[in-house]
Structure formats: structure tokens, C-alpha cells
């Protein structure tokens, strides 16, 4: 039995891939990426005493811009637009540290570092920390948008791929090819239900988050919807692509899992990107999930707009176009005879010379 099982395993490339790939992924994640400590926090220093303060700011703060002429308004805008997570706003009499509450670990790290600074500050200097957008630093605030993203990812990828593979497994795909249905009809007909289900699921989760957990929704619904649609194109496309290289549901799930787990681990969903070393962080920037999480959190918690988040939208749009385009092509090919040939006389009314 043992010998036989090993022989079969040797030939099952997908399972082998998983056996090798999984430990490596876990190693990378838990060795490098999984960290809640933030090593470096980019900050801006604004206000009259900006130059003086920026000169003495200790680690982990890294000053990236100094602007004595800017005030509170500019600080809030910068935070909302996700330009920096922390702004030191100086006044004649004191210092207010404005923190982006949607970046949980940076916020807690900042609080700790600032209280250390406050202790050493000269008497009379007021040092104040103000956490914007998520003042109580609730985890639910950042988890719910993340959940919404995960739903779109799971339904789009796994569930869709299963649905399409089921057709191939049942042998009915060929029947569809022969019916008077256009390939586009079949394709859209197959993914539309999953689009709808995923969107509905997401809405339910967000609404529940708002009502039950008090998660804020400061931005525009349109901004979130646009991001969701673009992300769905990516995930549905991935789902169809996975099904096009899988012969049965088991294979589809294996492949889908291999695509999902790295995204969940390295997209900033659980472990913040800023705490990953640069060598690992770049992986996160290649993953579509990273960008939708950015959009979801930005729109819901900070009230950011489409304009300020435009790089994320553009990335998703391009990725989506490519993946969805490929998926359409492959699907079409599995339905119609590969435009291989000439010599196909299909005269319906032509008299037949026997």
C-alpha cells in the first residue's frame, strides 16, 4: 500500500507543488512578514516649530517632509488621502500628533513612542496625540473592510472556478458548444451569478459591520463600488482561468488555494505591509488583494476619494483587463473549435452532388 501510494503521489504534480510550496510560503510569512512591530514610521512635520521639532524626532519616526506653512487642514487631508500615517502638527505652545487610526499598529506604535517623547519634553510644552478616523483603535474597523475584500476574493476565485469546472466534469461543456448559444452568452451566463452573489455578500458584511460593530463609512459608496467591480473582474477572471487548467473540482481547489493563501498573508490584510522588510514587501505590491484592501479601508475608514486612491484603481483595472481578457480567450477556445481550419463548407441550401 505504501509503495503504491508513494508512486501515485510522485505523479500528482499539483499535490507535490502544494507540499513544497506551502512550507516555503509559511516560512517566508512567519519568518519575515508576520510582524506587528513597525520599524519605521514615515511622518510629516507641519506648523511654526516644524524645523526645530523635525531635527530632534527620534526613531521610529522618519521625517519625509517639513512644511512650516501648513496647518491642521493640510494635516487632515494628508492623513485622509493616505499620504502619511502620522503628522506632527506644531504650534507655538505645543505639539499635536495626528495619527491615522486605520493603521492600527502604526497608531499604537506612535502612541507609545510619543508618550516617551512627552516624558522628556520641556515643561509647559503640551504634547497631545489625536487619533483620527478610528479614535478607539477598534480592530473591527480595519477587519471589516478586509473581510469584504476576502469575500470577493473567495467567491470570485474558488467558487467560480468550481462552478465552471463542474461543467467540464459533467461533460456538458461540449454540449454547450454545439447548442445555438454564443460563447459570450455562455461565459457571462456562467459568471454572472457569482458576480451577484459576491457583491451581495460584501454588502451584507459591510452593513453588518456598520450596524453591529459601528464601523464607519465615511467615503462615497460609488468609490467603494467601483473598486469592488474592478476587483471582481480580477477574481472572476482568475476563477475562470483556474478552471480552464483544471480537470476536476479537486484540482481547481488546490490551485485556487495556492493563489489565495499568499494573497491573504502578504497583502496587508492581516500583517501590515509596513512591518514587512522591503525584501518581502514587494510581493505584496504585486497582489491585487493589496490594492482592494487599500481602497476598502481608505474609503470606509478615512473617507478617501477615488482621485486620491487612483493608483490602486488603475492597478486593479489593468490587472483585471489582462486576467479577464485571458480568461475570455481561454474559455472561448474551450467552446469553439480552435479556428484551426479551412475547408469547411456549410452550405445549407447548396444542392448536394452525391
Amino acid at each position: 500500500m505504501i509503495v503504491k501510494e508513494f508512486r501515485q503521489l510522485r505523479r500528482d504534480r499539483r499535490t507535490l507543488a502544494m507540499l513544497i510550496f506551502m512550507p516555503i510560503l509559511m516560512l517566508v510569512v512567519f519568518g519575515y512578514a508576520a510582524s506587528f512591530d513597525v520599524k519605521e514610521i514615515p511622518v510629516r512635520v507641519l506648523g511654526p516649530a516644524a524645523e526645530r521639532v523635525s531635527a530632534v524626532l527620534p526613531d521610529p519616526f522618519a521625517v519625509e517632509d517639513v512644511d512650516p506653512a501648513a496647518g491642521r487642514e493640510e494635516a487632515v487631508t494628508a492623513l485622509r488621502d493616505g499620504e502619511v500615517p502620522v503628522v506632527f502638527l506644531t504650534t507655538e505652545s505645543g505639539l499635536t500628533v495626528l495619527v491615522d487610526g486605520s493603521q492600527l499598529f502604526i497608531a499604537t506604535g506612535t502612541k507609545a513612542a510619543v508618550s516617551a517623547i512627552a516624558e522628556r519634553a520641556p515643561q509647559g510644552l503640551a504634547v497631545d496625540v489625536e487619533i483620527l478616523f478610528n479614535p478607539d483603535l477598534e480592530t473591527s474597523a480595519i477587519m471589516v473592510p478586509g473581510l469584504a475584500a476576502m469575500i470577493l476574493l473567495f467567491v470570485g476565485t474558488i467558487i467560480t472556478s468550481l462552478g465552471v469546472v463542474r461543467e467540464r466534469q459533467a461533460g456538458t461543456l461540449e454540449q454547450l458548444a454545439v447548442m445555438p448559444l454564443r460563447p459570450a452568452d455562455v461565459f457571462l451566463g456562467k459568471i454572472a451569478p457569482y458576480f451577484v452573489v459576491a457583491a451581495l455578500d460584501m454588502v451584507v458584511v459591510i452593513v453588518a459591520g456598520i450596524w453591529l460593530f459601528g464601523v464607519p463609512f465615511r467615503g462615497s459608496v460609488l468609490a467603494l463600488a467601483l473598486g469592488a467591480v474592478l476587483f471582481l473582474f480580477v477574481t472572476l477572471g482568475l476563477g475562470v482561468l483556474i478552471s480552464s487548467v483544471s480537470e476536476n473540482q479537486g484540482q481547481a481547489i488546490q490551485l485556487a488555494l495556492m493563489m489565495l493563501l499568499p494573497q491573504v498573508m502578504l497583502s496587508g490584510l492581516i500583517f501590515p505591509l509596513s512591518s514587512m522588510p522591503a525584501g518581502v514587501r514587494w510581493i505584496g505590491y504585486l497582489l491585487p488583494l493589496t490594492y482592494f484592501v487599500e481602497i476598502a479601508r481608505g474609503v470606509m475608514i478615512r473617507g478617501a476619494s477615488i482621485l486620491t486612491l487612483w493608483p490602486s484603481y488603475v492597478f486593479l483595472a489593468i490587472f483585471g483587463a489582462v486576467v479577464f481578457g485571458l480568461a475570455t480567450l481561454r474559455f472561448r477556445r474551450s467552446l469553439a473549435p480552435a479556428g484551426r481550419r479551412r475547408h469547411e463548407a456549410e452550405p445549407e441550401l447548396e444542392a448536394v452532388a452525391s
Partner: protein
Amino acid sequence: MSWGVRGMTVRFGDHTALEGVSLEVPAGRVTAVVGGDGAGKTTLLRCLVGALAPDDGEVRRPDARRIGYLSSTSGTYPDLTVEENLAFSATAYGISEAETRERAAAFLDRTGLTEARDRPAGNLSGGMRQKLGVIRAMLHRPELLVLDEPTTGIDPVSRADLWWLIARAASEGAAVVLATAYLDEAERASWVLALDDGRALAEGTPDRIAAAVPGTIRTSTARPSGDAARRSWRRGARWRTWSPDGAGDAASQGDPVRPDLHDAVTVAALARELERSDVGGEAA
């Protein structure tokens, strides 16, 4: 109007699935394509309905709306009920609700599927599922009905029902072509094309194919020895030996029999096998 293929050639990489095969499928008749696994039956039928583009040759078929097709892998959605399966087909082919209902009901009734109307197709026995598949394929009164091995592996009672459906389709004027591995079924068709390894082995009406066997066939109870052994095969309790030139060799004994379709196809396959293995061998 006659549908069919001419000079069909299909290659998958360096494997030739079909080579120069032609077949006419006249309306109102049943045509059978017979052969074992790998003979090219499915490839031929797929080319005929347009699920596969050939490398060479010509296809004459009506447009998709007037074709009915049952592939060998399935015809039905296991998660949909019998009714839902038929409804999907009806919508896809654009036939009216009313017409479908009556026609479907009549067929379901005749084939004993009425009680299973609301059962998911995946819960039906093999025979019932195939019957459903054929009903689905002929619901829209296609001009060309193509069935790929509809009766393989199903029980004789379901097979009888299935042949009723086939006869019904032909009587409605459809050109029916079916693939089968069974010669006793091919014998029921009005025209037979026997395939072997992608090439036509024999064709014609069953009687004509049987009559066209060259030489003689003799049966004996003992296995022939020597050279004749290469030209013998077992059938039932006796051996049959084929003498290509009719004259008895020293080794062939036994009583001559009139060949039937089964013999004709076996002989043709044997002849091809001998040809392939003969190295400039004896003239047959």
C-alpha cells in the same frame, strides 16, 4: 437534403484520429458508426456537429438550431431535475413552452421517466439518464440527430426504449446517426460505417457488408493450428477461421458458414492486422 462528411481527416499532434473518412447521413434513416474504443467514432461525430474542426475534408450540416447532439460523456446536468434539464434545452433552442411540454410529456411517459420528473438527473440510473439525454437532443425536432454511444453500458430495457426514441426521430424525418460498439445494434441501422483506427473498415447496408466478405469462413470445435491460427477467432463455443482465397488450406477444417455483420467486421479487422504485421508476406 443529405448531411454528412467527405474525406474527413483529423490529427492530434502526431496521432491520426481519422483519415479520409466519408459518410452520408440521409434524412429519415438511421446510420450507424461502429468500432471499438479509439476507432475514431467520437472524433467523426464531433466534426459532424461542429464541436471539432477537421484538418481536412468537408462537412455538411444544418445550422446549430437544427442539430441535436448527445455526447458520449453526458447529456444532462446532474444538479438539475429532469424537467429543468428539458426546460434549459427548450430555451436554448428557442422552442415554445407549450409545444415542449406536450412533446416532452409524451416522450417521458413512453420511456418510463414520468415519475422521475422532479428528480435531479444525477440520481437517475445510467439508462434513465441516457434516455433523458436523447429526449433532450430531439426535443426541438432537429434535422440532424447525432448520438455518441447512447447505449453503451445501459440495461437492455432502457436500450429498447432508447431505440424507440431513435425510431421516432427517424420517423419524424430526422437524419439519425449513432455511434456504437455493438454490432447487433449496428445491424438495426439502414447503413453502417465500420471504423478501425481512424479508417473506414467497411461500409454499406448490413446485408451488403456481410455478403461482401471475401473468401470463406469455416467453423470448427478445435482451434486450428499453424498458419490458420492467425486467421481464427473464437465465437461462442466454436472457432471460426477465415480463408481469404476461399480454397481450403490443409489446416482449415470445419463447415463453412454464411458470414454475418459480426464476421465481416472481424475479418476486415483481421485482414488489416495481418497486413500490418506481414513483412512482404504471403499474398492473401
